[in-house]
């Protein structure tokens, strides 16, 4: 079971038109853990993240070669419907992108689309998701309020709750705290640590200290290539590659 849920990437190349954003990357992502992608801007870490739920399909001119297998299936194959894939591999973005509707309806969105109509079950699922995202106590009395009335950090946690509601196996997070203040960031980091028992988390982060604090594994990317990938502990204390050491100690990037 453990083995089966591992996401295996082999020789993945992602191009925007002619330019290669991700070059021939191979790696294995273990389930029920937090993996962080780090590297300077433009190193391809977001592009790599967006390959796992085929969000790259939505960008004109973006092509992917190579293979990503998960649960015995080739995710890049034409026979995989990205729409179905994304309910198992959901995503949270850099900017909190809540819908301009109520807090309740934001979380209900994915559930309704998947066919949940029973109001009692909806209520229960929404409460559970909001609790999982550590937002329930703050919003339980105003579920019908406009989601825009929440603070930035609360909006991002609402996005996490919305993604958790459809019970994904993998949650992708693209710099989820880069637009937030330190207090909101701390809350979300706490949350990520708790959530890894329920979902596999793969995140992109600009902040090396954040990767060091919350991830189990870290991948360092540079100019589209995977320079080094391994236990976070090892990457930060005793990297194999000189480049990794230089980046982590702040000598470039």
């Amino acid at each position, binding site marked *: 079971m453990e083995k089966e849920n591992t996401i295996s990437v082999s020789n993945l190349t992602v191009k925007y038109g002619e330019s290669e954003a991700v070059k021939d990357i191979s790696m294995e992502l273990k389930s029920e853990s937090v993996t962080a992608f780090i590297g300077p801007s433009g190193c391809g870490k977001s592009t790599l993240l967006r390959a796992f739920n085929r969000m790259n399909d939505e960008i004109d001119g973006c092509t992917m070669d190579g293979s990503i297998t998960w649960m015995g299936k080739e995710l890049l194959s034409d026979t995989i*419907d990205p*729409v*179905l894939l994304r309910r*198992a591999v959901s995503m949270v*973005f850099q900017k909190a992108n809540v*819908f301009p*509707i109520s807090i309740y309806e934001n979380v209900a969105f994915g559930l309704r689309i998947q066919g949940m*109509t029973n109001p009692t079950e909806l209520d229960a699922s929404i409460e559970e998701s909001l609790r999982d995202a550590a937002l329930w106590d703050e919003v339980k009395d105003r579920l019908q309020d406009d989601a825009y009335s929440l603070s930035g950090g609360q909006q991002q946690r609402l996005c996490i709750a919305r*993604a958790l509601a459809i019970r994904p196996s993998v949650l992708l997070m693209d710099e989820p705290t880069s637009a937030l203040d330190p207090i909101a960031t701390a809350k979300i980091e706490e949350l990520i640590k708790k959530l890894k028992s329920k979902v596999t988390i793969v995140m992109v982060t600009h902040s090396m200290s954040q990767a060091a604090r919350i991830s189990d594994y870290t991948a360092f990317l540079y100019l589209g290539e995977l320079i080094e990938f391994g236990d976070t502990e090892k990457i930060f204390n005793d990297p194999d590659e000189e480049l990794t050491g230089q980046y982590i100690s702040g000598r470039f990037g």
Partner: protein
Amino acid sequence: MSEANPLEGVSPRHNFVIGSLFVSASLSVVASALIIYTLADGTLDFFSSDEASLLEFISGRDWVPNGRNPSFGIWPLLSGTALIAGGALLIAVPLGVSAALYLSEFASQRTRKILKPTIEILSGIPSVVHGFFALLVISPFIQDYFDATYFNAASAIIVVSAMIMPIIVSISDDAIRAVPREMREASLALGANRWETASRVVLPAARSGIVASVLLALARAVGETMAVTLAAGSVASLHLDPLREVQTLTAYIAQVATGDIPPGPATDAGFAVGSTLFVLTYTANTLAIGATKKRFGRKPLSIRASIGKLFPSISFSRSNIDIKEMRKASNYDPLLPTPLDMKRRSMEKLWRRTIAFSLVLGVGFLLILLQSVISAGAPGISSNFLTNYPSSRSHLAGIGPVIIGSVWLITLTMLFALPAGVGAAVYLTEMSRPGKINIFLRRTIQNLAAVPSIIFGLVGLFVFSRILGFGLSLLTGSLTLAMMVLPMIVVTTEEALLSVPKGFRDGALAVGATRWQAVRHHVIPNAIPGIATGAILSIARALGETAPILFVASLFSKTAPTGIFDGFMAMPIQIFFWTRHPSQEFQDLAASTILVLLILLIILNGIALLIRNRAEARRSW
């Protein structure tokens, strides 16, 4: 020799320049004041006559302006207007919003690149040409299949919907594209497909912009004159049967304009009708401006949810899927489609096709109409036709003086409108401080843009022709048209100025230029292509416009004008009269004239497109 202190002395004030720019910006206020003065004065005249009373006007159910016992109850005209505008919205709103949704959410870049300009060009088809379509192409068809009368509301409804659909498409498309990309990504990342994303997330988020597009289309439909005058008829009666004849508010004013109404209270009534029309379109426009101010619309309760709230006992039972239970099942595979997933896929396909079809329908319909005018008009075009005068013998008739009249008219119009419009835009965007005056001027220009064209005709007749004594002359006609295209020039110039990066101004100011010097040397030169594009599109608009000059054109003039106080004819007016002619030969002459007009419009649009593309290719910033 002592050094001059750089902080002493006075920089140039440019009082004259800034003063002239302010005057230009104020001209729209003058124009608005003239409109209100004309309507108020004429309306008061009308109500002071013995035959008319305000009570009858607002409550009467008969509109019989002629005869021994005239009766002036506005309701038949209101019902005619409501029938046509309502009918047109009923067709154009679903088609237009679907087409916009398809263009922005589903169409490929290439399709979009072809269709968006096509729709813009189709939206430039003059309303008198739509009148030709309605009366001579669509009406015969409706008469044959639905037992309608020669003049009928239905044919007018169809062409008016074709006229307002491009407005809805283009403004809704802007609103839909303004919805942040992140919103779509959020929805897709939650496992929604493209159609679910478009219908449940994008469309509700763009709601306020779409409402604004519908209100603007409503204002346009209510103010539409020529197509309705030609096709819907001139019998004002209180009914909502699309197969019969109706008269609208605008059509009555046009009837006054064409001299079919005797002088006296019946003619004065045109001003009272004009006031009514003004109030209606002003209201729609004000509501539209209010709607665009809201960035995202709040999603309203769905019909189902509202019914559920009102009558909790009614339940809409749909099969419920327990996601949690499903995920727990040992053989659960998220990548395998369930029956519900299959249903979602087919719904997406169905809706995609439906909204693609509405786009094809809208564009295709107009292309078929264009084809019909080509086949009727092409044989008649010859060198004789282009040089002869509009004789009453059809085989000798031509449009020589008419073309010359049109060229005079648009040249003079641009001579008045271009400096004023550009000056106003420069003042508003570059030279004035934000504040109450600026907001007031802007609001005035926005409102002026929404005034129905036939009302400008009333102002031209009353102010320029009668009060200023310019008579039925080119001067009157071009001043009237200049008032009408002024807002268009202001808006396009403002866009051109705003597209020049702010850094250009800051750079000039930082080396000691005054604000005017920065604008004069670094902003305006870079905005020239944009200003020229806007000017050319305004020429196209003025060239096809009929209603405002309907009052002042000189029919049956055999010679071309030679000076600004001469009478004139213009192509759209000639089209109007030949289309109304009962005999086929003259109707074909109308088709030939339409072709000449359309070719000129296509050339103008082509030049505008060329300037825009070349400027974009050359632009280094």
